[in-house]
């Protein structure tokens, strides 16, 4: 459940970033497509990193065992 919500947040962030890029630097169709590509790639990379780390902690096989002196 939390996974889906935060994934949606990532999607929203990606959309907002593309809109921001379009508003700030509107430099012709080819450059716009290039900026869009960059934003989408970045969003996907970031989401993937987060998703891997989140899913790995969803159902952990081991738990933290505190070391002496903590």
């Amino acid at each position, binding site marked *: 459940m*939390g996974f889906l919500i*935060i994934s949606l947040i990532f999607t929203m962030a990606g959309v907002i970033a593309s809109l921001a890029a379009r508003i700030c630097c509107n430099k012709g169709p*080819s*450059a716009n*497509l*290039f900026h869009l*590509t*960059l934003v989408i*790639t*970045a969003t996907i*990379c*970031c989401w*993937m*990193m*987060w998703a*891997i*780390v*989140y899913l*790995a*902690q*969803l159902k*952990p096989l*081991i*738990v*933290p*065992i*505190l*070391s*002496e002196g*903590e």
Partner: protein
Amino acid sequence: MDFLRSEKMIFVQLIIPVESAHRAVSYIGELGLLQFKDLNADKSPFQRTFVNQVKRCGEMSRKLRFFKDQITKAGIVLPVRPAPQPDIDLEELEIQLAEHEHELIEMNANSEKLRQSYSELLEFKMVLQKAGGFLVSAQSHTVAQERELDENIYSKDDYADRASLLEQEMRPGPSNQAGLRFISGIICTSKILRFERMLFRATRGNMLFNQAPSEKYAIDPMSTEMVERTVFVVFFSGQQAKTKIMRICEAFGANCYPVPEDITKQRQITQEVLSRLSELETTLDAGLRHRNKALTSIGFHLRKWTIMVRKEKAVYDTLNMLNFDVTKKCLVGEGWCPIFSKPQIHNVLQRATLDSNSQVGIIFHVMDAVESPPTYFRTNCFTNAFQEIVDAYGVARYQEANPAVYTVITFPFLFAVMFGDWGHGICLLLGAIILIARENKLGSQKLGSFMEMAFGGRYVILLMSLFSIYCGLIYNEFFSVPYHIFGGTAYKCRDTTCRDAHTAGLVKYRDPYPFGVDPSWRGSRSELPFLNSLKMKMSILLLLLAIVAVPWMLLPKPFILRKQHLERFQGRTYRMLGTSEMDPDGEPDSARQHLEEFNFSEVFVHQMIHSIEFVLGAVSNTASYLRLWALSLAHSELSTVFYEKVLLLAWGYDNILIRLIGLVVFAFATAFILLMMETLSAFLHALRLHWVEFQSKFYHGDGYKFKPFSFASLPDDDD
């Protein structure tokens, strides 16, 4: 998207009448969008048309280098931005440069001569001062024998040529009377012992040697360093001894100067020498000032002249590449230019025709080309660095997909996976921001090789730092310390006493930590097994993505090519010749040249081979992608070590000095090892992943770069 594939290039031919040739080529150089093909590649440099002009330009730049040398040696500082001066013609410049050079060489020779006589007079003065002392004491010990004072001129051969007034006063000719004579002179202190011994042996001990070091250091003309000198006086008798001693003096490079025995004469000569010295000093000073003035006036124009000569040489080198048609009095040139620049080049050529008052216009038309065009990506200062990274592996083939489009994001991302620490990321971000903020100032300066690379890649560093901050937040490491930024940890003790915390561990009681690695893991005994497995999984997943993406590019290719082939050759009988419009996604050369049937099976087998190659490569890539895990582990461990073993250790003591030392060591270790070394290391490995694993899958990279004739790209060597 323009950046994905090379700009469309056309092959053009120019026919330029001779009178407007020079102007046309220099205007094209200012525009900088046409790459000339060398039509005289088989000729040696001496067979080319404009070889004389190139030689003249070479001579002029030699003279300019000579001036620059002289100016630096004289220590004159030039104004950074000289006042604008009127334009000057090349022939006039040549004449002016020759004049200036002649003048400068003359001045240098004169001052050299003056300096020589100045140093000799200086030596003479020292000899007079010291030797005078010896002679006085020698005189008081004399027997009442007649002694003839010999005032011969014992000297090096060329000393006699520059006879001074002093020598003319002296009595000429040696005296043949036997008696105690002496030779006085000056020699380097380092040689004095050997000199004395040699004299002793040569005269069989029948000599008296007196020496006194002179306090002042002087410049030895031979080695041009400051050496210590010693004044000596040798008393001897006999003609034979005299010749021997003279020869030994010559061999040791000792300068001999005659000193009169009479005290009044000594004083007189000393006075003359002193006045002569001061005269020479003023003359030398005046000469130096005159020369510096000349150099300064040259220096004002130097930069402008240098640029002009360099441009002219480039223009003549380019003109040499064109074919000179003697009968029609025109030059024929061929080259590549991007399609979008065609109207600009037309304008430039028209302007050249007008400016040179030529009756005939320049012909500029498109031709068919046999060879493949050069690759041209229009980059701005942001995409330039990434394009260079890709080009270092290989320049894209014409109209091939440009990996730089994705490299802009994936390269910093992979770097960040290996570097993830948002504290270090913030440091990198500050560095990148400083570089970008002072872009203009640093861009015009000459930087060292390391700073130049860092400055050129400032946008790469910016993106790397942003992604590193993101990955640092995910790994939850701030200088290796985790924070509870995104809420509480998901783990707690099994019961209130926390007895089992050190044996069985904590227990997960709610949803996972929403963003990144749970902070409870840091410092626990099971931290490494958990993180290792996490990072390994990440590497493998990234690898799988790379593997899955590529068959999409390879497999559809034969089907697409087949479709295009059929479309293109629908109306085969009405094929147009010499069309310049080429389909961007196909293979233009092969499609035009090979008119035979499209062999579907052949292409498919080709693709199969590619795919098999690719699968085998994927196996080897697995191990390679695990470097993402390895490097991020190394970074995190280094960071932990510095934090725990340096900072925390030092902070444990109450002593402020130990704490300060600990802080300093921590700062230095962080800056040099983590920020610099780890940055370079992660950069290198991300680069390798890109070059080998990513680009080798689909990238041919066997094109050549578009290098237009442009004044802006002329090498700026000495400035």
